[in-house]
């Protein structure tokens, strides 16, 4: 898995070395690779009967995680907001 991180770091270095040239096409490349990978993920999910049968319960677990994660970060944002705001405008 660390191969993946190494690839990203190699990319950052490459991108930085070529910063004189604006490599605009890279965003197109990223988009196409994401399309390809999600198509492959769909293919893998679709051909896995066990996952297809459980799709509903996986969706429910996904919902719980999404809901809790979003709510947690919103609450933290609220606490942070109170602190930042009172410090920015001292009474």
């Amino acid at each position, binding site marked *: 898995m660390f191969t993946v991180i190494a690839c990203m770091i190699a990319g950052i270095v490459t991108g930085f070395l070529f910063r004189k040239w604006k490599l605009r096409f890279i965003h197109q490349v990223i988009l196409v690779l994401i399309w390809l990978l*999600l198509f*492959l993920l769909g293919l893998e999910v679709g051909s896995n009967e066990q996952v297809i049968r459980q799709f509903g319960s996986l969706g429910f677990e996904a919902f719980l995680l999404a809901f809790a*994660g979003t709510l947690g*970060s919103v609450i933290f944002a609220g606490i942070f907001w109170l602190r930042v705001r009172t410090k920015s405008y001292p009474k």
Partner: protein
Amino acid sequence: MKGSLIILSFFATGLLLGIFRIFPLEISSGNFSFYVLCGLMFSVGISIGNDPASFRQFRHLNPRLIFLPLMTIGGTWLGVLVVSFFLKNRSVADCLAVGSGFGYYSLSSILITQCKGVELGTIALLSNIMREVFTLLFAPWMVKYFGRLAPICAGGATTMDTTFPIIVRTSGKDYAIVSIYQGFIMDFTVPFFVTFFCSL
């Protein structure tokens, strides 16, 4: 939103072709998708390293808001941690890996599938799509009850692209730079945290 629908339709097409066995499975199994993933990460790296302008823009940021991504990370982890105690068949690390997608569903689901298999990868995809949808739908409500930073934290890694317009509309354009900064930092952290929790 349109971009997300296109991405979803690629997943759905693959799903249908997979269910009806129209496409040969040999292509999806094996190392092919891993090589594509490495190519993707290399490209993501290039896009970060090649754009020093995005770093320079952050000089205009309110220094106190530098810690905003920490709120996003801490809040998400805490919420996910609580839920992980109710999900008996998922480990805490699995749940944290899904949560650490921070809405970046394409990358997190791909990484998690590689590492933990299709089942958790599917959860990661659905969960992170839902996070983005929650942000798009409930941003005005979040601002009302939790302040102007709330939709930015909720949006996680998506706040410099897909949820950016709604954040500017609900939090105000004074928070545009904060939103881009937060999205940039979170985009960068996703691969690190996801692979970290997958390796536990």
